[in-house]
C-alpha cells in the first residue's frame, strides 16, 4: 500500500521530534533556546501540529523588556439579538459574554459595546440588549451598529443609550480615561437609499442587514445622509488633544477598506485616518467583521472585535496582510469562532488585544507584532489553514 500524505507527514514529524529531543541534553542555554525556536519554526511551517505541543515556553519568555500594562478594558460586540421568544440562541451567547466579563479579576476599567446589539433594530431587541448589558459590573460605553440604526434611523437607540451625547451627535462622543483619549464613532452612515425607492422602515432595515446585498451602500463617517457633522466634530475634538496623548478610536465598521461587497469598508476611511495621522499612538478597535482581523496603516493599529452571535468567513480578497486567519469555525459548536475580549493599554500608549475565543485558546495580538510588520511577537498560527 502506498503511504498517504498524512502518514508520510506524521512519520517525518515523529522523526524530527525524536532527533530534537536527542540533541537536547547536549545543549547549553543559548543553544537550547536556538533549538527551541527552530523547533517552533518547523512546527509552524508544517501547519500540522499545534505550536503549543512542543514549542518551549522559555523561548517566549526570553524576550526582553515587557512594557507595563496601565489598564485594561473589555469588549462585547455584535450580539445581533432578536426578541427572546423568537431566538434564545443569541441571548445565551450575549449572557455568556456578560458572565465572562463579570468574571474578570481584576475587573476591567470599563466595557465597550461594539455595535449591532439588535438584529433588526426593533425596540424589543434593543431593550433586551440593554437589560442584558445592565448586568455588567463595570461601566459600559455604547457604540452603534447598522443593525441598531436603520429601522428607525437611530430613534430608539438614541433614546436608550444617547443621554450623554454631545450636542448634535447621532451616536458619536469622546471621553478621557487615565491619560488616554477615547473616541466613539458612528461609522455606519450611508447615503439615503430608502426615500426614492419608498421603502418601509422594515424594508430599509432588511436591505441594510443583508451583508451580501449586491445593492448595499458603503459605510461612511461623514459622507452619508447625515452630512459631514461627525467629521467636523472629530476635527474639533482632536484639536483639543495633545499630539502625544494616546488615542483609541472605536468604530463599528473597520476604518479602512477590506472588502466592499460585504461592507467590510468605510468609504471615507482615509479622511479619518488623515485626522489621526499627527498623533503618536493611535489604535482603532472595530466591530462588524466578526473575526480576528488586524491591520496597520501608517501610524494606526487596527483590531477587529469578535461577535458573540456568529463568526464570519474571511472575505475572498482584501484581507489585511498582517492578519493571521483563524481557521474555519466548527458549525457544530455554536460558540466556536465567537467570543469577547480585552484590550491592554500599555504605559507607552500602545494597546494589545486579547481575543477571548470561547472554544479555543485565547489569541493575543500585540502592538509590537503590528509595528514590527509581523516579525516580532507573532501570535500562534492555527493548526489547520483557514478555508
Amino acid at each position, binding site marked *: 500500500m502506498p503511504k498517504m500524505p498524512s502518514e508520510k507527514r506524521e512519520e517525518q514529524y515523529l522523526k524530527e521530534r525524536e532527533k530534537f529531543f536527542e540533541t537536547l541534553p547536549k545543549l547549553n542555554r543559548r543553544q537550547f533556546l536556538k533549538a527551541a525556536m527552530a523547533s517552533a519554526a518547523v512546527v509552524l511551517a508544517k501547519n500540522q501540529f499545534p505550536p503549543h505541543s512542543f514549542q518551549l515556553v522559555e523561548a517566549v519568555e526570553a524576550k526582553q523588556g515587557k512594557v507595563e500594562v496601565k489598564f485594561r478594558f473589555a469588549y462585547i460586540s455584535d450580539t445581533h439579538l432578536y426578541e427572546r421568544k423568537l431566538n434564545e440562541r443569541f441571548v445565551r451567547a450575549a449572557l455568556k459574554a456578560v458572565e465572562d466579563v463579570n468574571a474578570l479579576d481584576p475587573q476591567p476599567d470599563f466595557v465597550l459595546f461594539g455595535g449591532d446589539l439588535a438584529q433588526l433594530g426593533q425596540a424589543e431587541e434593543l431593550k433586551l440588549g440593554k437589560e442584558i448589558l445592565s448586568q455588567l459590573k463595570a461601566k459600559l460605553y455604547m457604540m452603534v451598529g447598522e443593525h441598531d440604526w436603520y429601522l428607525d434611523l437611530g430613534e430608539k437607540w438614541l433614546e436608550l443609550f444617547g443621554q450623554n451625547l454631545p450636542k448634535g451627535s447621532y451616536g458619536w462622543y469622546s471621553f478621557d480615561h487615565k491619560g488616554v483619549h477615547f473616541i466613539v464613532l458612528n461609522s455606519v452612515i450611508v447615503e439615503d437609499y430608502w426615500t426614492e425607492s419608498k421603502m418601509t422602515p422594515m424594508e430599509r432595515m432588511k436591505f441594510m442587514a443583508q451583508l451580501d446585498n449586491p445593492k448595499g451602500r458603503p459605510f461612511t463617517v461623514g459622507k452619508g445622509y447625515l452630512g459631514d457633522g461627525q467629521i467636523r466634530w472629530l476635527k474639533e475634538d482632536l484639536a483639543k488633544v495633545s499630539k502625544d496623548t494616546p488615542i483609541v478610536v472605536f468604530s463599528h465598521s473597520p476604518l479602512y477598506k477590506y472588502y466592499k461587497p*460585504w461592507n467590510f469598508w468605510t468609504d471615507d476611511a482615509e479622511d479619518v485616518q488623515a485626522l489621526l495621522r499627527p498623533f503618536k499612538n493611535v489604535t482603532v478597535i472595530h466591530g462588524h467583521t466578526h473575526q480576528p482581523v488586524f491591520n496597520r496603516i501608517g501610524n494606526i493599529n487596527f483590531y477587529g472585535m469578535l461577535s458573540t452571535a456568529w*463568526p*464570519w468567513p474571511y472575505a475572498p480578497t482584501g484581507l489585511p496582510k498582517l492578519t493571521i486567519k483563524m481557521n474555519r469555525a466548527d458549525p457544530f459548536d*455554536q460558540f466556536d469562532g465567537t467570543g469577547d475580549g480585552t484590550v491592554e493599554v500599555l504605559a507607552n500608549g500602545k494597546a494589545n488585544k486579547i481575543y477571548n475565543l470561547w472554544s479555543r485558546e485565547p489569541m493575543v495580538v500585540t502592538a509590537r507584532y503590528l509595528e514590527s510588520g509581523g516579525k516580532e511577537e507573532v501570535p500562534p498560527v492555527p493548526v489547520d489553514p483557514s478555508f
Partner: protein
Amino acid sequence: MLKKFSLIIPLIILGIFFSGKDSLATKGDKNSKDDKKVITACDGATQVVLNDVAKNEVMTREKAQEVASMLLATYQQQKKYQSSKFTRRDSLIWERELKAMIEEGYKWFHDPSLGTNGISCDMCHPDAADTHPETYPKFQIQLKKIALLRDMINWCIENPMEGQPLKEDDPRMKAMEAYIIWARANQDPRPHAKILNPGKR
C-alpha cells in the same frame, strides 16, 4: 530577356538539386493542394479532396461513383451533426432556466422562513462563502458519515436555524444547491473554489 531567363532557370534547378530531397518534398506538399482534385457537392459547401487524382485528370466511371458516394456520405454526416447543434435561441432559454433556478436558490438562502428563529443561511455564509460545495462528498467528522452538500444544508436548517429538514428532492433544496455551487464558482476568485475536491476537509 530570353537570354537572362535561360540562365536563371537552370540555376534554380541546380539550387533545388543541391538543397536536397527534404526541401523538395516540402515544396511538393505546399503545392499539393493546388494540384489535387477537389469535388464540391451541390450544396456548395461539402467538399472532398482527392489525394490520388490529379487536378486535370478525368476519372474513370468506377472512381467517379466512389467519389460521389463519399461526397454524399460526408454531406449526410454533416447534416446529422447540424441537426443536433443548438441555436442561439436554445442557449438563451437554457441560460434563463438556469438563472431562474439560481435565483430561486438565492431567495431561499436568504429566507429565515426555513428556520424558526429568524436566522437565514446568508447570515453565516455571505455569498455562500464557507459552504465549499466542491469538497462534497466527504466524511463529515461531526456526523460520523459521508455527507453530501444537501446533508449539510439540512443540518444547518435543523440546528442553527432550528427548523424542519427539507426532503432531498424538495425544489427548495435543489435550488439552494444550484445557488451555492454557482455562487462559489462565480463570486469567489480563489482557484480552490473552482476545482472539484471531494473528500477535502
